[in-house]
């Protein structure tokens, strides 16, 4: 049937949107968008690794994303701010990955599909893996939500309440790596951070509580996936970038209607 692959694409996009909504809120609250970049660019290194070792791409990407995320988590030191070091890690990871793929992969492998995703090529088994990953992320966030939120507001408050903020950070790191692995096929390594940051940023003016912001970000994320797939079908444009463009469009719309929504103590 003609619409089969579209349906699979929509379901895959839905799974990524559901996980990226709340995770993206935590990313912007904790100001770790650069950390998301470093983790997702490592996915390209992971692809090269998987091709070289002939293991499943997902396993290679998960391993590389997790390794880089753990290595750069909490960086920062005497000479550099954390953002500088993360910038170094993100761009080196990407460049090294591209070089490694060029050197090791057969000519039939398209680098672009890893950079921008190929959501229309999502198969049944991909769909299962993407949903399992997304549900694992959602489950982890729901399980630790209160502690994660407290540690995000102030690490010492979490510590005094008996939670170890480092443990919550580790959970964030693992959730990010997992999202990178499952979203690679949907939006590609370059645009994963966009799916985390843009819907969350768009949701901010509409929300009065952290939970409301997570829900609204998720809804906007789902809307962006739907709009993006539809528009790319109509325009024959690359689907991953079209989804992110739709998210950006929603962000602009929210900014435009914000003065109308502004009331008293909202800000």
């Amino acid at each position, binding site marked *: 049937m003609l619409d089969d692959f579209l349906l699979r694409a929509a379901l895959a996009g839905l799974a990524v949107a559901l996980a990226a909504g709340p995770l993206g809120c935590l990313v*912007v*609250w*904790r*100001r770790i968008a650069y950390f998301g970049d470093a983790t997702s660019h490592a996915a390209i290194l992971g692809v090269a690794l998987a091709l070289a070792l002939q293991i499943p791409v997902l396993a290679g990407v998960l391993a590389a994303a997790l390794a880089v995320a753990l290595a750069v988590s909490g960086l920062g030191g*005497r000479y550099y701010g954390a953002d500088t070091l993360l910038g170094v890690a993100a761009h080196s990871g990407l460049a090294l990955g591209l070089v490694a793929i060029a050197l090791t992969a057969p000519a039939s492998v398209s680098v672009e599909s890893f950079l921008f995703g190929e959501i229309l090529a999502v198969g049944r088994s991909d769909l299962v893996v993407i949903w399992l990953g997304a549900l694992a992320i959602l489950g982890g966030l729901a399980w630790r939500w*209160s*502690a994660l*939120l*407290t540690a*995000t*507001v*102030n*690490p*010492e*408050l*979490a*510590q*005094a*309440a008996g*939670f170890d*903020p480092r443990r919550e950070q580790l959970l964030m790191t693992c959730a990010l790596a997992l999202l990178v692995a499952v979203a690679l096929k949907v939006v590609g390594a370059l645009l994963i951070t966009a799916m985390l940051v843009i819907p*969350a*940023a768009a949701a*901010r003016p509409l*929300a*009065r*509580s*952290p939970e*409301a*912001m997570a829900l609204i970000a998720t809804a906007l994320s789902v809307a962006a996936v739907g709009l993006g797939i539809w528009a790319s079908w109509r325009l024959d444009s690359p689907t991953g970038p079209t989804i992110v463009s739709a998210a950006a469009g929603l962000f602009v719309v929210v900014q435009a209607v914000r003065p109308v929504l502004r009331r008293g*103590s*909202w*800000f």
Partner: protein
Amino acid sequence: MTLPADALIRTEGLRLDRGGQRVLWDIDLTLRRGEVVTIVGPNGSGKTTLLRLLIGALVPTAGRLRRAPGLRLGYVPQKLRLDPTLPLTVDRFLGLPRRVPADAAARALQRVGMAGAAGRQVAALSGGQTQRVMLARALLGAPDLLILDEATQGLDQPGEAAFYRLIDEVRRTLGCGVLMVSHDLHVVMSASDRVICLNGHICCEGAPQAVSDAPEYRALFGIGTGGALALYQHAHDHHHDHGHEHDHGHGHDHDHGPAHARPDTDSEGADSEGTVSEGAGFEGAGR
């Protein structure tokens, strides 16, 4: 190391090094139920670092730290530093990490003078209001030990006086221990049972009057021989620039070398009554 019956936290020979340099050393400290203890010291003397060690946010390089089993900590940090992208109402903040009933939250807000603020955004509060809300949150946890880091930052003088009266009331009603950090000398000291003068190590400790007379304290804060009057004036000066980053210098010599003799090394000495100093002007000064 044993924990006395009424002790909440006890440390012995606690030490913290950072980047090969010692930040805190020889910290012997016992905090007890029902006691208000204040740590004073210049900037960079390790006050906040010591608090972070006590709550477990830092791991000591050496020494021992014991908490009473099941100890509930109420912590009020120096600043909240909320990211503007995080929408957070006061009542949601009070329910972190564990949700609290609305009426309990309302009572806690009333207690700190923030009645009716439950629906406001935390980011929209002034510095002083944020401190009160953080105190309300700490109180909701029915703490055994309340730890406040420069809690009166951003409060005006009447607000500050009211804040210390509130702390005193909380100590009496909850029976908790209170540990405060301040570089604001006189008000905080008059509100304390025991003052610990910190500059990397514990320079001296005891009842407020005893400490304010101690030569170590005077060397650290540059108070000459003027006694209570000089202390009053120093502290009075101090009040006018609150809300800013204090340069605690005031032209005084704060270099308190590690070679300096330490008169009061065992924590039991903390129980000794302070000697009566000249002039009773300490209490109530600056109100």
